[in-house]
């Protein structure tokens, strides 16, 4: 049996590691780029990031003041659903309660406000907050939880959606992605370098969801298994690096962590494209819990693993 108390303890610990340190792929990238960045200002920005993470980890404190909107990607193994104390409803309740508890315990910045009145309950709780996404994992004997803190930069200005004419083709997609990146990074509008997620095709919400998940759930250096889509990822990365926008838009070789693209078929009258620019403050952590009480930390979420 997976008790709600055990789940709450595990998720609380997960939020701490989520906020105190960067994922390994991001940290390694920043260090490597810092060592080879030739722009003086670019190097200074990367050094400030690395110093801040080292200092925050040592003090057990969040490394960025924007501790994000709290998001859960939950993988429910079919073989473990019956083992969850109180069932799924109790699990969701636990995830909501933990969000408020860690907000005061860690502490996290209370970011969730009413869109019109701007009322802030100071708990990171409200309609839609925390954001909980669920996927059923056939035959899996574990509950997998990925915590992601999504900052205001990517959510506020770092995202764009459009529907291009159906025959705009690859060049139209490149134009939209490059133009969006310029508008979002130039003059320091958002915190670059970014991990650029691109959603290609799908319906309105599938397109934007793919862009966001490609940016936040796939590791630096990952390529789409479809070789044509992988080629387009490389093309877009080359395009963005040619802009030399650099860290904080101040110029340099480090303009992006990577470009990740996800594709879904779309309506024949459309060519939807979405872009999501994840900032350098990536907070992504994953854990698996088994019915026998075992807890396993994972470097990556399995959320993006393809079914076929």
């Amino acid at each position: 049996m997976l008790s709600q108390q055990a789940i709450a303890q595990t998720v609380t610990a997960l939020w701490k590691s989520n906020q105190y340190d960067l994922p390994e792929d991001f940290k390694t990238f920043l260090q490597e780029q810092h060592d080879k960045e030739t722009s003086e200002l670019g190097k200074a920005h990367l050094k400030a990031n690395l110093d801040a993470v080292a200092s925050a980890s040592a003090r057990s404190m969040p490394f960025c003041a924007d501790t994000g909107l709290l998001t859960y990607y939950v993988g429910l193994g079919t073989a473990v659903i019956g083992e969850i104390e109180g069932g799924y409803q109790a699990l969701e309740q636990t995830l909501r309660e933990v969000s408020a508890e860690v907000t005061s315990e860690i502490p996290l910045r209370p970011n969730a406000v009413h869109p019109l009145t701007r009322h802030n309950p100071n708990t990171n709780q409200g309609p839609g907050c925390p954001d909980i996404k669920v996927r059923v994992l056939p035959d899996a004997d574990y509950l997998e939880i990925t915590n992601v803190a999504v900052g205001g930069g990517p959510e506020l200005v770092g995202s764009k959606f459009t529907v291009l004419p159906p025959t705009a083709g690859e060049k139209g997609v490149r134009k939209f992605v490059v133009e969006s990146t310029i508008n979002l990074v130039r003059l320091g509008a958002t915190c670059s370098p970014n991990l650029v997620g691109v959603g290609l095709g799908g319906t309105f919400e599938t397109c934007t969801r793919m862009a966001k998940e490609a940016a936040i759930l796939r590791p630096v250096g990952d390529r789409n298994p479809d070789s044509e889509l992988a080629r387009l990822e490389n093309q877009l990365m080359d395009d963005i690096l040619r802009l030399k926008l650099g860290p904080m838009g101040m110029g340099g070789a480090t303009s992006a962590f990577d470009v990740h693209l996800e594709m879904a078929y779309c309506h024949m009258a459309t060519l939807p494209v979405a872009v999501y620019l994840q900032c350098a403050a990536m907070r992504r952590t994953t854990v698996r819990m088994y019915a026998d009480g075992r807890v396993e930390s994972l470097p990556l979420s399995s959320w993006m693993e393809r079914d076929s």
Partner: protein
Amino acid sequence: MKSVHLKSPISGEALRTLDAGDSVTISGYLFTCRSLTYDRLIDPEGGEGVRNRLKELGAETVFHSGPLVKEGPDRAEMIAMVPMPSWLAGREKIEKAVGLLDLKVIIGKGMLEGLEEFCKRSGCVHLVCAGNYNEYASRVTRVIDCAWPELGRPEAMWIVEVDALGPLIVDADTKGKSLYQGIDEEFKADAAALLDELGIDLD
């Protein structure tokens, strides 16, 4: 590029030696401000009490930030304090507050178009952060006060004392120059071929 330490009270002369691109650290009193906080601060009557308090302290710096603060039983502790984009606050509000409080330093993130002209006219500077996130909170030696807590902890105004807060980078200096403007000219030249290939017109 040179490194400069500014200590309150900051003289006009010290500000005039700064050039866009210089690295700056700063000591003295500052207050955090976001868009809703500015509305309160510049309100002719509602903001008067807080404005008087800031003047008494000699606060000369506004920091565009929604910090992460831990409130203890005796005192509040600054956990993380990173700048937010200055354009989120809005230029009119910033200019009004600078005028009302005779501020010398504006700290934020990114370029705010037209602010370089204002800095030239009023003799103040716009500094931007190093990095996306940074160690600035560790430079806060004391949390003095919190105004308008009903706005929510991040949107409230936090008045703090800092020692060698930095490194910060001069964006707009007192001579009408903006670091980002110079960088943008280089960007347009470097990216011209790709922009042309993809048919992108910059505004």
